[in-house]
């Protein structure tokens, strides 16, 4: 229905644009006076008047319809006020299923009545939506078309609308951040209503497998995030151990030693490494790297886990090589020619120049790049979801399986989830930790680059 309405609005807008242009041309030809705006602006203006208010209304309506209908249905339901939030949402989903005709057990008469109520409300809402959208579009078209005249400043009107759209667009980024913060905070606060803050922040046990129904046999559940953070730390460090030397050394070779032809071949190849989706790395880690590490571990006499931290961390490190390499590359390129030449003039070899002049001068840029890479490693999801373990364990042994924040978020939320048990809410708390942590790293990285960058 909404799709047809959108189509209708589009057609209506085009029609009023054509009508508006025709009317503007007619008026222009009928009088010797020079009009303020060209006909095209009158047409576009009419289209904006026709389409935009109705479109905005439609979007708002669609966003709020479900919530309003649910409220009305529950309001008509006997003793709905006594129910908790979870029971309410269960009840409403049962009513919806009955209304859709897909419920296997026999519904009670109250639910049947509520389902009828829901159906009638939805039918009403549908026609009300169509009526209001059509009315808004026609009123808009009427005013938009009526305004056309010699003096009417259609171009200014159009440009104003465009400016408003542009301002709204640049606010979307802010709204996104606000949405992230609000949703994470909201769910996290709900989580802390069930699990004490201190347990989450300082607890040493992470066992989120709790009973959903009373009769299930399951652990008590423990939500201490320290072991999860620890695992994240271990895997990120392994990744950085691979990525930092490889990334910086390849950047040194590419900027200082390689000739133009080699550079033209190698740089795009490294960029391919950056363009490969992380799920591909994850699958490769499971398919090839993890068995390899396991057999290496066994030959060394270490009992390596099939999803060892080393496999996940190592592959993640390779993923980060192009990232560190290109940022270091930029940092080296920013060091002025004169410093290099000065070092050579003193008789230093190329290697000495690189180690004693270029590296110190480029260090802030490199550190910034490393911090950004670290924040990526911490937030990286698919590699660890596929290759790292699920059990939170405090182990520094790279052959052990550890888990990470992102792994826990994904495993806690995969499948159908209700927002009322600590298990799903814990994922949002972890998400908030992750968000704050990566945000902090990014800010530090950016300020490092800005503050310590030598001005040459």
């Amino acid at each position, binding site marked *: 229905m909404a799709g047809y309405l959108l189509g209708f609005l589009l057609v209506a807008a085009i029609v009023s644009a054509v009508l508006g242009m025709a009317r503007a041309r007619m008026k222009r030809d009928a009088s010797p006076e020079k009009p303020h705006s060209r006909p095209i602006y009158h047409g576009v203006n009419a289209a904006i008047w026709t389409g935009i208010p109705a479109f905005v209304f439609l979007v708002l309506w669609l966003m709020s319809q479900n919530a309003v209908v649910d409220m009305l249905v529950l309001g008509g339901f006997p003793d709905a006020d006594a129910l908790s939030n979870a029971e309410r949402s269960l009840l409403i989903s049962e009513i919806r299923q009955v209304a859709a005709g897909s419920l296997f057990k026999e519904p009670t008469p109250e639910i049947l009545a509520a389902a009828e109520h829901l159906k009638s409300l939805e039918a009403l809402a549908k026609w009300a939506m169509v009526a209001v959208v059509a009315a808004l579009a026609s009123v808009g078209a009427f005013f938009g078309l009526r305004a056309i005249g010699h003096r009417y400043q259609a171009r200014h009107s159009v440009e104003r609308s465009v400016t408003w759209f542009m301002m709204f667009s640049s606010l979307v980024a802010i709204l996104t951040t606000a949405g992230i913060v609000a949703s994470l905070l909201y769910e996290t606060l709900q989580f802390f209503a069930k699990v004490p803050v201190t347990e989450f922040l300082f607890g040493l046990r992470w066992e989120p497998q709790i009973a959903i129904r009373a009769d299930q046999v399951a652990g008590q559940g423990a939500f201490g995030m320290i072991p999860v953070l620890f695992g994240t730390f271990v895997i990120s460090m392994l990744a950085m151990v691979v990525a930092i030397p490889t990334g910086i050394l390849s950047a040194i070779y590419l900027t200082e030693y390689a000739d133009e032809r080699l550079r033209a071949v190698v740089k795009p190849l490294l960029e391919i490494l950056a363009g490969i989706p992380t799920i591909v790395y994850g699958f490769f880690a499971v398919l090839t790297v993890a068995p390899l590490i396991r057999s290496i571990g066994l030959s060394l006499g270490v009992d390596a886990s099939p999803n060892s931290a080393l496999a996940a961390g190592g592959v993640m490190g390779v993923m980060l090589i192009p990232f560190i390499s290109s940022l270091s590359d930029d940092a080296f390129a920013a060091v002025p020619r004169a410093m290099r030449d000065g070092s050579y003039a003193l008789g230093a070899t190329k290697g000495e120049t690189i*180690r004693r002049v270029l590296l110190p001068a480029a260090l802030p840029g490199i550190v910034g790049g490393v911090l950004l890479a670290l924040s990526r490693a911490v937030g990286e999801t698919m590699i660890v979801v596929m290759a790292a373990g699920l059990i939170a364990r405090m182990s520094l042994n790279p052959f052990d399986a550890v888990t990470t924040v992102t792994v826990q978020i994904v495993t806690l939320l995969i499948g159908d989830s209700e927002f009322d048990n600590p298990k799903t809410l814990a994922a949002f708390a972890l998400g908030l930790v992750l968000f704050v942590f990566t945000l902090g790293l990014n800010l530090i990285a950016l300020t490092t680059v800005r503050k310590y960058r030598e001005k040459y």
Partner: protein
Amino acid sequence: MTPGALTTAVSPGAGAVIRPVDWKSDAMAARRRARYAADRRLKIYGMVAIAFAIGFLAILITTLSFTGYRAFVQTMATVEIDLSEAEVDRDNLMDANWRGIVRGALRKQVAELPRSLERDFFGIFTSSAHFIVRDAVIADPGRLGRTSTFAIPLSDPLDQLAKGQINPELPESQRRVNDVQIKYYEEIESKGLISQPFNWGLFFNADSRFPELAGLAGAITGSFWVLLVCFLISFPVGIAAAIYLEEFAPKNRITDIIEININNLAAVPSVVFGLLGLAVFLGWFGLPRSAPFVGGLVLSLMTLPTMIIVTRASLKSVPSSIREAALGIGASKHEAIFHHILPLAMPSVMTGTIIGLAQALGETAPLLLIGMNAFITSPPGDVFEASTALPTQIYIWADSPERGFVARTSAAILVLLGFLVAMNAIAVFLRQRFERRW
């Protein structure tokens, strides 16, 4: 070793005797050699680093190709089925006893089939053989009156056997096909009924629990819808925001905050966007789970910062003389931008857009959180129908225990990489063909 050591030798300290350095002495020659060796070592480390990275890339692509290429062919048995005498009600093709008809025809392919071995024998063929025959007949009811041939996929274990993935020499308990099945398979093969054509099902079938029938049609359609929604939102909004920030916004605290915010948003982990989608779009707005629309919405918020940054850079690269010329002959600011600057910046904006969409195509974590990893056996018809996407389909298959899904997963990855290569090639082409250097 260090240049610093030299200065102590030559610097005239209090009472020090100035000794000229004998550059030809053995000590100095050894020093020189050591310094050059250090230089060479650094160079070699660099080469090793690059070789490591590129070697990893090569191994990754080769491994995936070697495990994936097998899924591009599918072992089929060509079976003749005589439908002239079959008891089929022409007006109710759906409900005929297709299982009986197909089993009867399969039974005729081998010389003798004792009742006790029937189970093993029918296990050679895909368990959905009767649906394949049914759908073929519904598509072409003319087949009813005569004997026609059908290509029936073999079941996954036999497909593996035919592709040499299962060693028939192993003891029976260690392989997934038993001796009876191997005997019957060889009997059918000796009649020349087994073939391995290109596996079109990989592209035209939707997902299935059975590897031999599983395909990417649903995932490709889902990814298409997701990218379409993502493009329709992030392209206009990204360009509009970039123009506003680059050309109109006053320099003040608010625009500073917006800019810092955009830069930070570009570095927020993708899984956090998934949480946003789950809590806000599914939880608060009540949009449907697993829908490509929600996926596209989340990914558009994710690509938006990239779009804005790329667009701003390309707007900046258009020389200001063009703007001044337009303003000089009386264009309004909007006209100067929309008629002159934006069209000139468009090629690089398009390049950035395609690269951003390519990134969005490979993004998995946010789609997992909004439930696009559901098991869905038909491609979505619109953006609100539950669906999977290419990367989430890879995730599902990678998690499936059947052996045949390993090859399918690699094949799906190769398909995904193929799409990415194509998109990037278009981006490179656009850049080289249309981008202007000023």
